[in-house]
């Protein structure tokens, strides 16, 4: 049943792709209709008329996204079903090679990620029709957009269902290629083209690494189905090779430092609902791949792997958020913060690996659950934030924080929804981001149970980095909200922004916000429902997660740690209401509106506010070594001997060190090599004859 629902999801996605492709307005469709209905002129006329109707485009759009939403709902239901039942459902499809048809499998793990995919997809489906309307009259056809979006979604769902390496790779690459076309959708800007190319290139490299990883397993397991791969008996060395390859491949897609370079380039330039899907869902698909490979397919786990993942994860987390803090472009900032969150997820997975390799199943499970929960949370609030950013972009065509401000007065509804996302991603109680980080901290704090001193000292250090990360994340998103929504507008078109008109464009984010709050307040049921999943992967579940009842979280044991978000919320509301009642209702003193304090100079223009760059300047100073900052200061002087400075213009740009250190040299190297090889083609036929001659001589000499 749930497998059927999953198929339904894939079909719906493909169907929406097809629907997009068949745009009744395209000339060849018209010709087709004309040919078909040539004999019945009045029907032809009717069809043509309905196609020419004003609302045709709107209905067409609506249909596309309804199908996508249907796909999301089906995926969600399928996932819930799989999580609930726990028994894997397997099936084979009549595709693929003669002796290797496509194997599909729906088990709790893929089920969970189907849910992770489903929720944002539904939100996007609500949001999309309003958002893509502006492309209607642009030079880029919606056909491309809809077609590739459908492919993209279908690809992601197929990755989750794949049960053999071939189908997995096909779906994986389908996902990459489709999203490439989406990134390149608005290709008139050179930056977008560059981003798209970089993205596809790195996706390809990652895919190559993944293929190699599967190849290692297939080489030993004799077969391409996941069952065969599971049977592969590997020596620790080969297992490590496979693991590192998988980590590289999936990490490249997930955006682990230093393989993240494509992410801040590609996510900002895609249409916002696509950015939401890419950042919110696609990265999770990569995480799924990693979990599937490391926890499920590989038959052993070495503690060194855990260390590796832990270190890389922590590095990604802290570097990601540091770079995010320095961005001026809102979507770029969000992209970097995705790097951070993925880093947190991998930190959790690293902990889990360490504990598992140490034979401590319970704690391994705890780490895994923390990581999975953070996946879901990030999917929710990151999609929410991208949709919000998209809404701002849609209303004001503004991406740069430096020009925003005061939007809370102009888009109050959006501002409230966005606030929820901000607080959740800043990992503040009582919202969902905090819950997952809390679980990860709890895992890290159990390091005492490990015998090896090295690990025992490393894990707390990692948790220290995690603490730093979450503090910086709070800073970063306070900046975002404060600069974008509060204060005074910093540019004219922001000052005249209007609330989003399309209802769906608010409903989508609102749905996600509701999920954020719900998970934040009542995480226990969700975590309990992961029992089947953890059973499948680690053979254990969090037995006493809710010893004190379903309101409470007691990951290890009640006396070790406990957290009751619901009660906390009640407490806050109670106290807050009490104060409000006592202080406001009773006194009944209405506040008086007045000018803010301006040191008596009078008149505070918007330019006097702190800008985004100024807000993050102290951090930039403090963590100087992590950045490559280019600052320029232009000043125009006047008066005698140019003593009086009239205009000061300060510009700064923060460059990614990984880019300068890793990617550019690689590119240069390839070109150099190519130039060197080019010498073969001298253009002189006698040289060519010489090649042939000496090849012959050489071969004759070899064989005799």
């Amino acid at each position, binding site marked *: 049943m749930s497998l059927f629902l999953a198929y339904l999801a894939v079909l719906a996605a493909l169907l929406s792709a097809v629907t997009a492709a068949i745009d009744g307005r395209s000339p060849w469709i018209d010709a087709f209709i004309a040919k078909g209905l040539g004999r019945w002129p009045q029907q032809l006329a009717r069809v043509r008329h309905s196609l020419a109707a004003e609302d045709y485009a709107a209905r067409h759009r609506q249909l596309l996204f309804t199908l996508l939403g249907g796909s999301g709902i089906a995926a969600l239901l399928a996932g819930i079903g799989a999580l609930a039942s726990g028994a894997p459902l397997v099936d084979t499809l009549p595709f693929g090679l003669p002796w290797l048809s496509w194997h599909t499998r729906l088990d709790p793990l893929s089920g969970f990620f189907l849910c992770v995919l489903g929720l944002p997809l539904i939100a996007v489906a609500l949001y999309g029709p309003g958002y893509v309307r502006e492309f209607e009259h642009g030079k880029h056809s919606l056909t491309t957009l809809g077609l590739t979006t459908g492919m993209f979604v279908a690809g992601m769902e197929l990755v989750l269902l794949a049960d053999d390496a071939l189908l997995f790779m096909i779906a994986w690459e389908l996902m990459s290629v489709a999203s490439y076309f989406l990134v390149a959708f608005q290709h008139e800007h050179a930056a977008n083209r560059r981003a798209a190319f970089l993205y596809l290139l790195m996706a390809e490299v990652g895919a190559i690494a993944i293929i190699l990883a599967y190849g290692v397993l297939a080489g030993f397991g004799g077969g391409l189905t996941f069952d065969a791969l599971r049977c592969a008996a590997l020596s620790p060395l080969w297992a490590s090779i496979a693991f590192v390859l998988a980590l590289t491949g999936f990490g490249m897609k997930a955006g682990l430092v230093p393989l993240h370079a494509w992410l801040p380039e590609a996510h900002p330039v895609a249409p916002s609902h696509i950015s939401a899907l890419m950042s919110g869902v696609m990265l999770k698909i990569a995480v799924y791949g990693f979990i599937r490979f490391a926890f499920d397919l590989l038959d052993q786990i070495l503690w060194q792997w855990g260390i590796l993942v832990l270190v890389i994860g922590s590095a990604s987390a802290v570097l990601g958020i540091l770079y995010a803090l320095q961005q001026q472009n809102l979507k770029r900032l969000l992209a970097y913060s995705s790097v951070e969150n993925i880093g947190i997820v991998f930190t959790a997975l690293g902990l889990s690996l360490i504990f598992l390799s140490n034979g401590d199943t319970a704690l391994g499970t705890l780490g895994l659950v923390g990581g999975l929960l953070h996946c879901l949370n990030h999917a929710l609030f990151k999609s929410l934030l991208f949709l919000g950013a998209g809404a701002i972009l849609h209303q004001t065509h503004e991406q740069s924080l430096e020009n925003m401000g*005061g939007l*809370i*007065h102009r888009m109050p509804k959006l501002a409230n929804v966005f606030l929820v996302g901000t*607080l959740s991603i*800043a*990992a*503040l*109680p009582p919202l969902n981001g*905090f819950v997952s980080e*809390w679980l990860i901290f*709890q895992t890290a*704090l159990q*390091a*005492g*149970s490990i015998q090896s001193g090295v690990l*025992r*000292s490393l894990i*707390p250090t990692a*948790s*220290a980095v995690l*603490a*730093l990360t*979450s*503090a910086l994340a*709070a*800073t970063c998103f*306070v*900046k975002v909200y*404060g600069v974008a929504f*509060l*204060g*005074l507008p910093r540019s004219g078109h922001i000052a005249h922004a209007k609330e989003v008109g399309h209802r769906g464009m608010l409903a989508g984010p609102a749905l996600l916000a509701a999920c954020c709050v719900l998970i934040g307040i009542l995480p226990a049921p969700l975590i309990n429902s992961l029992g089947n999943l953890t059973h499948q992967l680690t053979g254990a579940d969090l037995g006493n997660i809710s010893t004190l009842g379903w309101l*409470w979280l007691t990951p290890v044991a009640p*006396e*070790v*740690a*406990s*957290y009751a978000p619901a009660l*906390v919320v009640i*407490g806050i*509301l109670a*106290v*807050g209401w009490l104060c*409000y009642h006592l*202080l*406001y209702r009773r*006194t009944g*003193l209405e*506040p*008086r*509106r*007045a000018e*803010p*304090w301006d040191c008596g100079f009078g008149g505070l223009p918007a330019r*006097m*506010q*702190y800008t985004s760059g100024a*807000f993050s*300047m102290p951090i930039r100073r*403090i963590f100087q070594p992590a950045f490559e900052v280019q600052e320029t200061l232009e000043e125009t002087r006047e008066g005698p001997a140019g003593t009086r400075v009239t205009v000061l213009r300060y510009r700064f740009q923060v460059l990614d060190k990984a880019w300068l250190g890793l990617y550019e040299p690689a590119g240069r190297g390839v070109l150099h090599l190519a130039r060197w090889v080019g010498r073969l083609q001298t253009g002189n036929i006698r040289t060519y004859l010489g090649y042939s001659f000496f090849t012959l001589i050489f071969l004759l000499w070899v064989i005799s």
Partner: protein
Amino acid sequence: MDWILAILETLLFIGAAPLLAGWTKRVKCRLQNRKPPSLLQPYRDLLKLYRKQPILPHPASWIFRAAPYVVFAATVLTAAFVPLVAVNLPTAKIADVIVLVGFFALARTFLVLAGMDIGTAFGGMGSSREMTIASLAEPAMLMAVFTLAMSAHTTNLSQAMNYVLDTGLVLRPSFVFALGGLMLVAVAETGRIPVDNPATHLELTMIHEAMILEYSGRWLALIEWASQIKLMLYGVLIANIFFPWGIARDFSPESIGIGVGMIALKLALLAILLVLSETAFAKMRIFRVQEYLSFAYLLSVLGLLSHIILEAARVHH
């Protein structure tokens, strides 16, 4: 019964916070050979503010008006989690020390947002500085707390205190480091000299004050009160985690009485300590605060590592 006790304790906490502030001020005046105000002065101030009509700057949105309530509520809740005179109260179970740090962050976030909501230079300046300091102080604090948590195998405060009480007086190097770290953080987080000067009137040097520059009336009252509670919270944390002796472990009147007396004594001593340091040091430049805080961070991490390395023998699971 327990719940009532817990609520009473919380109320006591809230009620006593201004008193501690008053006491601190008093000691300070004595040290600076000034004539001190009465101990109850803070209460009077709060009452006065409560009666005044608040002023709302033009650009402000609902965030500005909601922030004080959120800040106060969050702080009160944290106060409820922290055992003041007795351990094993049910409220201590609701949340552990990590949540506590989280609530500090929540309160801070809203304060900062309120600071940016008014769209003045000072608000943004204060917010930026506050967040910078916090983003360094918070991990330091977490590390300090983790040191305790790892040796006590719990992040639940009252459990931790029980653990320390049960094991009796053990000279743990890790605790020394953690204590140092936590004290430094406390100074930074409560906005005292040398990090920030609560009594300053020069906007450019302000951090915390710059954010709440626009607040007045009942809102200011709430915020002031909340920061007094916060000061006391840190005091209680330091006192009860590292020197929990005297805290009530059962709810018999006499032990509770002892508990009250002891905590009052400890807090008084801590306040004196604080004042001494405040008079001894001068306020630092904003960019020297990072060194100060990274030192705190270093201390805490050292605490953690020394726990791992020096006290490894104690690790049993």
